[in-house]
């Protein structure tokens, strides 16, 4: 795992990727810090972090698009498959390198509240709590990007797909307020969502039985649930969308609350995405 980690890290810094990512984030951190903290005199560094999250829509796809897709395109994945180390270690090594890169701007931004404190009173606890949340958000989004990169051998496709997912996750919270809240509308939306999920399973696994199983269990469960307790479906789709809104979870940190459940949520996303990435790599061995 160490060898994979070192190689990955070296590849980020041999090219421009890591430098551009770090510079991009720090540039916006500087701009927002100047606007909020210096020009307008807000003592809250967390506002800077909250405004910066939109940058991930571009930065995460650029950073993660090549992680596994490039290995497939260059056929270097055959070396990884032939190595006497498990695929879990390979994926972990890659993710840790990715995590190192996304942690770099956070490490530099640790200095910002200290610098700002020279101009006035700064709440270090809320600032650093928000920074920790920002790091967790970055780590979760990087894990999602890694998973998407493992699904294709085309970097452009990986980047495009990742951007679409980031966009959806970013606006998920806002979109949830536009969703009809009636029980029947929620049921209809969830049925379509499960059908889309089954389609994605078919696309990714090329297994019709697996897709059918997802569709039958999902749709069956929804219909059974609706028959048993239709009132529970009122506003359910909106709540599901809220639950999937990764960015919304960070805003709790930005509001000055260190939300342990949100931290656990981010860690769960990381775990699930890494697990699925390993399965995606293993699937290729079996397909």
């Amino acid at each position: 795992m160490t060898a994979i980690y070192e190689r990955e890290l070296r590849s980020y810094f041999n090219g421009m990727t890591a430098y551009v990512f770090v510079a991009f984030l720090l540039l916006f951190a500087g701009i927002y810090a100047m606007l909020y903290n210096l020009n307008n005199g807000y003592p809250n560094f967390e506002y800077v972090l909250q405004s910066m999250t939109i940058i991930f829509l571009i930065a995460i796809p650029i950073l993660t698009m090549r992680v596994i897709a490039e290995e497939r395109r260059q056929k270097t994945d055959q070396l990884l498959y032939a190595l006497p180390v498990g695929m879990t270690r390979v994926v972990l090594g890659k993710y840790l390198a990715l995590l190192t890169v996304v942690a770099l701007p956070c490490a530099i931004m640790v200095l910002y509240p200290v610098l700002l404190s020279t101009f006035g009173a700064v709440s270090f606890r809320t600032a650093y709590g928000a920074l920790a949340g920002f790091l967790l958000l970055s780590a979760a989004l990087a894990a999602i990007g890694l998973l998407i990169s493992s699904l294709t051998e085309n970097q452009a496709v990986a980047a495009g797909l990742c951007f679409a997912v980031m966009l959806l996750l970013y606006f998920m919270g806002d979109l949830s307020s536009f969703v009809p809240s009636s029980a029947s509308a929620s049921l209809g939306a969830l049925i379509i969502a499960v059908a889309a999920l089954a389609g994605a399973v078919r696309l990714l696994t090329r297994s019709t039985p697996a897709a059918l199983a997802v569709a039958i269990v999902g749709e069956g469960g929804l219909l059974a649930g609706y028959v048993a307790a239709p009132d529970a479906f009122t506003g359910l789709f909106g709540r599901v969308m809220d639950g999937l809104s990764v960015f919304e979870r960070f805003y709790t940190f930005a509001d000055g609350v260190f939300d342990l459940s949100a931290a656990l949520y981010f860690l769960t996303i990381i775990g699930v995405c890494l697990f699925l990435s390993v399965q995606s790599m293993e699937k290729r061995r079996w397909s």
Partner: protein
Amino acid sequence: MIEIEHLTKRYGSHTAVSDLNLTIEAGQIYGFLGPNGAGKSTTMNIMTGCLASTEGTVRIDGYDIYEEPAQAKARIGYLPEQPPLYLDMTPLEYLAFVAKAKGVKGQDRQRQLERAMEVTQIDGVKDRLIKNLSKGYKQRVGIAQALLGEPRVIILDEPTVGLDPIQIIEIRELIQQLGREHTVILSSHILSEVRAVCDRIMIISKGRLVASDTPDNLEKLFAGTAALELTVKGGEEAIRSALGGLPGVAGLSLHDGEVEGAAGVTLESDPPADLSEAVFRACAAADLPILRMSMRRASLEDVFLELTAGDTPEPAAGELEGAEKPEEESELPGGDGPEQGDDEGGERP
């Protein structure tokens, strides 16, 4: 060393490898020979754990490649058809990474790196970026990574594809050199290559092993009736009476000779035998000067074409069994005993 039993790989309805059985013994250079799409690369990918089989088992030194992948893979060095190189690294960086990933530690790593670079002769380019190297050097770097971890078996998938003639000769020499310390398995669809390099040849057609033996034995095995081609100075009647009654002669045909007053003669023997001495004596006794005499044998090309031609999904039982069990090969016409075959196989071309 490597035991493959009932190996089958299906891609949907297409069967790439079908019930493949073979045993690889230590200390020899094996050649996987077969036309494109025969299943060579698929078999190699399964042997190295890069691909999972649909059915069957692969054991490396007794370790199952799926049950105990770490132990099994530690005994294999693999060069896929396209060398798995990181173009943004130098050969030295790349080899250090592979050695570390294979778990080679400390001074041993340094020693193995130096040896791999020395054997593959990439010392001179070790600090240049791989993307700037020629295809021949890239192939050498690929072979060097396969040597790291000191595996007992080196598996090379089409190692000379895309190289120029000089590079091909260099890589062949390198493979022969590797064969002195490792068991080497290489795949190719180039007959001259496996003929020049390999001790034993395994011919694969449509995912099935249809023959396995030394190059010489394969040629003998499929020679059928041996034929002697002669140009003899003399009359047709005299030639027929002198040679037609020789023991072992199954057929005699005459045609125009290349020299005036001489006839071209084709003598077939069954069972295959070398009639040249008997023919010489008979012609000498009949005062028939022999102007030219040569033995016609089946070439490896003939063997290859015979075994892989047309749609032959079900090879003859004798061929398949002979392929799986070398000791049975001697029972086939023209085949030598296993000891002789092995001895011949032990010699380097």
